[in-house]
């Protein structure tokens, strides 16, 4: 397993290196930050000044290596928009909010989707199965921002059950988390259901039945533990799409997380923050996938024992 983990880790590092290159070139392709950072009536002197200050006058490869060196230390430079803080600080400041929301969304999706998918598979063709497939379909048919606004109107403005938006306690998180989880519930339900269906067909399930194992134990101990590998693999993707989804949901719900930050930073052409937020997202994604790989090995002895 140590070797398995080491290779996965090295692969992730390699990916990260390539990502730094992409991130760097992207933010430098997206146009000069000068135009966003200076006033309408800025003089040429001001423009030159800022260019020098941001190091934009140096050759590109020099800029990249400096970037890489500093990035390795978690230093992406000072934010140009949030003056007075380093880019990493700004992101780290906002990351917990995103993780809270993403975490709750993940929790909701898992809590709803896994049992639903399992039951739908076990009772294939039943009304629960039908409900599950309707949920799965609806989940993939609504844009998250739209759903978010509708939820806000119905449950916050009209019914007043939850706050409309903003940062705060769990009640503030409920609506955005649901809007965020919606699509994931759909995907996860489908995935769990089909994985379960496949596993329920397996011979070892038949063996468990013939040895007198109760239905509940068959479903959860034997079938689900095997089927779980599929949804678990999906958690990596899920982590990624939760982060991506945070961009939209955080905008709608004025949730001060990294997604909202990313948009502000891009609009404000705050290179350092853009770079640092994308890198954080990528690291988070790779980390999530790395953990999934490990989890995978922990669950499945076949992987644990292989090279």
């Amino acid at each position: 397993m140590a070797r398995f983990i080491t290779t996965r880790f090295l692969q992730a590092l390699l990916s990260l290196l390539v990502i730094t290159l992409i991130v760097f070139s992207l933010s430098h392709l997206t146009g000069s930050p000068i135009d966003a950072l200076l006033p309408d009536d800025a003089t040429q002197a001001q423009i030159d000044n800022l260019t020098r200050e941001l190091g934009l006058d140096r050759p590109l490869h020099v800029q990249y290596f400096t970037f890489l060196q500093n990035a390795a230390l978690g230093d992406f430079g000072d934010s140009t928009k949030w003056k007075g803080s380093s880019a990493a600080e700004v992101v780290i400041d906002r990351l917990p909010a995103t993780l809270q929301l993403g975490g709750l969304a993940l929790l909701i999706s898992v809590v709803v989707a896994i049992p639903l998918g399992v039951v739908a598979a076990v009772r294939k063709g039943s009304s629960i199965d039908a409900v599950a497939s309707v949920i799965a379909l609806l989940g993939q048919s609504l844009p998250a921002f739209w759903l978010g606004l509708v939820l806000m109107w119905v449950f916050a403005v009209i019914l007043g059950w939850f706050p409309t938006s903003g940062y705060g306690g769990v009640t503030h998180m409920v609506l955005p988390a649901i809007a965020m989880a919606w699509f994931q519930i759909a995907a996860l339900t489908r995935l769990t259901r089909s994985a379960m269906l496949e596993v329920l067909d397996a011979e070892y399930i038949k063996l468990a039945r013939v040895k007198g194992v109760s239905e509940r134990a068959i479903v959860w101990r034997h079938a689900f533990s095997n089927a779980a590998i599929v949804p678990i693999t999906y958690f990596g993707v899920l982590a990624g799409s939760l982060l991506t989804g945070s961009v939209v949901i955080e905008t709608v719900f004025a949730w001060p997380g990294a997604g909202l930050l990313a948009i502000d930073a891009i609009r404000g052409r705050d290179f350092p923050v853009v770079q640092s937020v994308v890198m954080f997202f990528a690291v988070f994604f790779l980390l999530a996938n790395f953990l999934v790989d490990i989890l995978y090995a922990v669950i499945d002895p076949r992987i644990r024992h292989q090279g």
Partner: protein
Amino acid sequence: MISLTILVVVLVIPALFADLIAPHDPYKAYLRNRLEPPLFFGGTTEFILGTDRLGRDILSRILHGAKYALSISIVGILLGAAVGTALGLIAGYLRGMADAVIMRVVDITFALPSILLALALATLSGPSFQLVIFVVIFVIWGYFARQVRAETLVLREADFVARARVAGASDLRILRKYILPNIVNTIVVLATLQVGVVVILEATLSFLGIGIPRPTPAWGLLVADGRQLIVSSWWISFFPGLAILLTVLSVNLLGDWLRDRLDPKLRQV
């Protein structure tokens, strides 16, 4: 096939014949008829689904919007599937270094937050149809590559491939005549299931202001634009939203159905 019917009615016919069936020019602003409600909600038969804040006919815009939904889906998915399939085939068939490199690239595209990428690119070049297509390709190709690679890995070990080798078939011939035809179903099913993803993605990009540029009546843009008036003039975003919902719903049903028919083994991806 209900789903097919819905698809044809909501998407295909409008996309092909919008010019004939749309009651109005989708770009024409009847400035005197701004924000007219739909028929049965106080509106008239002139604007069955109401008008937007410039007085453009919602129905006509939705009908014309089908063109964009269809063309983004088709172009984006075709290209995404082509890129993904080609690379997936190479990775799965050659294995070794090529495989490692391609799969790493897939990992990387998954790791990069696509929306942020799109935002960054949009600031560079301004939003455009091409950008939306690019983002679509970027988002979906990896799924194709992974799936195709996995199947190619299995197929290349299949006895019929060994038999083809015994018969002296070249690698290219094996890929073309033995492996590709056997993954076409998977690709078709996967492509169908991506249509929903693509339409939603287009809407999301529009919400962020980097979708298809206005005044094009792309569905996503219609929904995104109408969201401000979701309370009083709900019809502006509701009907395009409904069109998206119906399309995605029926395409997914169709995909499920195709999967059952063509490829029962394909996992939900």
